[in-house]
């Protein structure tokens, strides 16, 4: 069930009421309620793969205990990694690698029919396998003791707000919360509702509105060029941001209703002043996962410049591949690696660690130009992310330069004026709230209650108004 549907609007209050009705002392029962709800939530997507989720959970639970007790922890670790990544490889990447291998052999003069499995991708597999992997690696590295309570561990893997599209949680962060008492907090619950509202606004109003035009322009890219093509890429940039960060806000807000804190996944990435900062603000849980479990074990920033550059390319290419079985995602990852390298080599990748233009109403000219340039780079990279093939992406990029005079034509911008104004207002609100977890946090409690109520009504009305054409959450396909 999608977060922006009536089904979820009925499901969530039922789970919430049941959860808090058992009282704060019954942690075990609270967790069981959440597990049942989570499995029900997953089954509503696809009943067939419930057993796969259960298998993945059981596997890492048992192996983690054996790693602590066993005499061959490294072997057990690699068994877990192989099986978890094997599941991903079979369901997500087999056909892609098979077709690519066949095409490569054909280019060398050897012809063979690729073996195609045509398997349906289980929802959320990229996320829950990474949950399991982070847990087993943390146990192996002795950062955490293995969980001996299967209920608590199951909930860590399958907690419904993060089950199908993250954030990718860490056992060190989430498990202690699941094991500890969770008392009802009025302030946190209201904050959670507020964050859900903001997430729905981003998804339904911003993302789905942008999707209509982005899909039109990308699906018919041979007919669009110049400014229109650029607007298509621009709209996609806001579609994917509104979609994914909106989902994350709904997930985090939902978790707060149960007094559980999830890892923040987005921190106003389009206000980044360089690509390094962008990757500290975009899909934070994934980039930090690759940093901690791939980059650092490979040597990280220690060692020669050559090995550092190699490591950077590895994580960005893997990050691209994680998103999908297509060369476009790999190219997108590689492009981001190229973007990242200059700041790494010049040692400015750790330069911008706080919010831009702190305690200023408007950005400085310096910050503004850097943000604009970084945003432009990400929009170009998103063209690969969105396109069906590398050829289509390059054709699209080529079309940006056709009819350069179109960039000065007012009529093109007027055609999309309502959406451009909406996006501008959205950016202003995000800018004002850039130092907070989400723009409405902290802002709302300080407002006059009547004004606050009016803001809620306006947001809810906007969601109602724009909820006509629903688009699938983009990250559900990963």
């Amino acid at each position, binding site marked *: 069930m999608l977060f922006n549907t*009536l*089904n979820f609007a*009925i499901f969530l209050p039922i789970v919430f009421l049941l959860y*808090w009705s058992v009282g*704060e002392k019954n942690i075990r029962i609270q967790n069981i309620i959440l597990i049942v709800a989570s499995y029900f939530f997953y089954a509503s997507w696809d009943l067939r793969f419930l057993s796969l989720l259960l298998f993945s959970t059981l596997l890492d639970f048992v192996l983690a205990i054996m790693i602590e007790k066993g005499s061959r922890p490294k072997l057990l670790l690699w068994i877990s990694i192989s099986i978890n990544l094997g599941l991903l490889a079979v369901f997500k990447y087999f056909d892609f690698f098979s077709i690519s291998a066949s095409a490569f052999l054909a280019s060398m003069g050897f012809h063979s029919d690729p073996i195609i499995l045509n398997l349906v991708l289980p929802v959320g597999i990229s996320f829950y396998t990474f949950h399991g992997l982070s847990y087993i690696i943390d146990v192996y590295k002795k950062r955490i003791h293995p969980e001996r309570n299967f209920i608590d561990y199951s909930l860590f893997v399958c907690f419904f707000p993060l089950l199908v599209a993250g954030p990718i949680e860490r056992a060190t*962060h989430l498990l*202690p*919360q699941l094991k*500890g008492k969770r*008392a*009802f*907090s*009025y*302030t*946190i*619950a*209201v904050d959670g*509702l507020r964050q859900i509202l903001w997430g729905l606004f981003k998804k339904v109003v911003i993302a789905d509105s942008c999707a*209509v035009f982005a*899909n*039109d322009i990308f*699906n*018919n890219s041979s*007919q669009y060029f110049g400014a229109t093509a650029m607007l298509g890429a621009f709209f996609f940039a806001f579609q994917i941001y509104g979609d994914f960060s909106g989902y994350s806000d709904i997930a985090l807000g939902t978790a707060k209703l149960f*007094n*559980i*804190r999830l890892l923040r996944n987005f921190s106003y990435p389009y206000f980044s002043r360089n690509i390094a900062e962008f990757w500290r603000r975009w899909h934070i849980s994934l980039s930090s996962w690759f940093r901690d479990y791939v980059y650092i074990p490979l040597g990280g920033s220690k060692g020669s410049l050559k090995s550092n550059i190699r490591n950077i390319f590895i994580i960005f290419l893997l990050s691209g591949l994680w998103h999908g079985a297509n060369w476009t995602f790999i190219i997108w990852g590689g492009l981001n690696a190229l973007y990242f390298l200059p700041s790494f080599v010049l040692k400015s990748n750790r330069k911008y660690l706080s919010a831009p233009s702190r305690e200023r109403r408007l950005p400085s000219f310096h910050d503004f130009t850097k943000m604009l340039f970084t945003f432009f780079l990400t929009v170009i990279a998103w063209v690969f992310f969105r396109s069906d093939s590398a050829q289509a992406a390059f054709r699209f990029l080529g079309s940006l330069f056709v009819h350069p005079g179109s960039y000065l034509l007012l009529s093109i911008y007027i055609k999309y004026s309502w959406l451009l104004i909406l996006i501008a207002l959205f950016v202003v609100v995000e800018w004002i709230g850039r130092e907070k977890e989400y723009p409405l946090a902290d802002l709302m409690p300080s407002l006059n209650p009547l004004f606050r*109520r009016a803001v*809620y*009504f306006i947001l*809810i009305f906007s969601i*109602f*108004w724009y*909820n*006509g*054409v629903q688009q699938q959450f983009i990250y559900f396909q990963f």
Partner: protein
Amino acid sequence: MGFNNNLFTFSSKMKFNFYKRVFFFLLQLFVAYIGLAWYVRVKTAHFDNDYLAGVNIKEKLLTQVSSHRLILVGGSNMAFGINSGELYQAFGRPTINLSIHAGLGLNYMLSQIESSLKEGDIIILSPEYFLGLDGDYRLMLETEKYFFNAKKYFDHSMLKMISAHLNETRDKLKNLIFDPKSHDVNYWFDVNEIYNRNSFNEYGDVVSHLGKRKPIITNEEGLLQYHKWEGIQRINLFYAKCMQKGCKAFFVFPCLPLSEYNLNRKAIRLYEKDIYTELKMPVLGTVNDFLFQDSLFYDSIYHLDSNGREQRTLRLVKLMQVGCNFN
């Protein structure tokens, strides 16, 4: 770990306070919505028509003819775009045009005919591109108003009713604000002249638009988004039932203006490929066979005018003469 301990509270009074505030907020929202819904329905009440009462006429046609029928099934692309009289003359079979509105969904269309299949029947199925299985719940409720037995063809649920109510309120509000013609009683008089229970001829074809002044062609569907169409599996199930009952069934692509095809070429080509590879029902013709000049359409991208209707019927007759074995 993870949250501020200062916010930690064990008070059930806090929970009660929370529930109370949420309840009153939702109550205010509900009252505001009811007010809005009432307002838009009052303002747009005279725009409603009884076009869907046509299902009664079509159901009667099904019962009047006993067997060896030629039955046309689909959305309004078939209702507006076929001259069933010519099909009757070409093939000598009693012809029934069951098509009425794509918004009723593929499940309704197929469920309705499934229960009436008789040995020797020939079905020509032409659903609109990527037609949904379930259809618009508002239209289903309206259909049941005119044809009680339609209940058994629909899947009822409270959630669908609520969703339909919300969608209807939103769409009526948008029409009220953005469509100036919706305020023009004369415009709506013309539209109601086309869409009413008397729009149909003796075969069930819509004929009220023939020779009438054309409004601007609208596309309410927007651009087509390609996806694996779930309708293929549903049609395969239907085809299996046809085979069991000794009927023949054929799939035909819907009519479409060339301009719409150009905008949606990629999605349509992929759809066509899926139809040829996965549909068990034989397919008559191609997508291209049912593309027409924009000038041959009446008021929407699926509704042909009188000339377009004749051209399409002629093409269908030729395809049926080659593809269907009437012996």
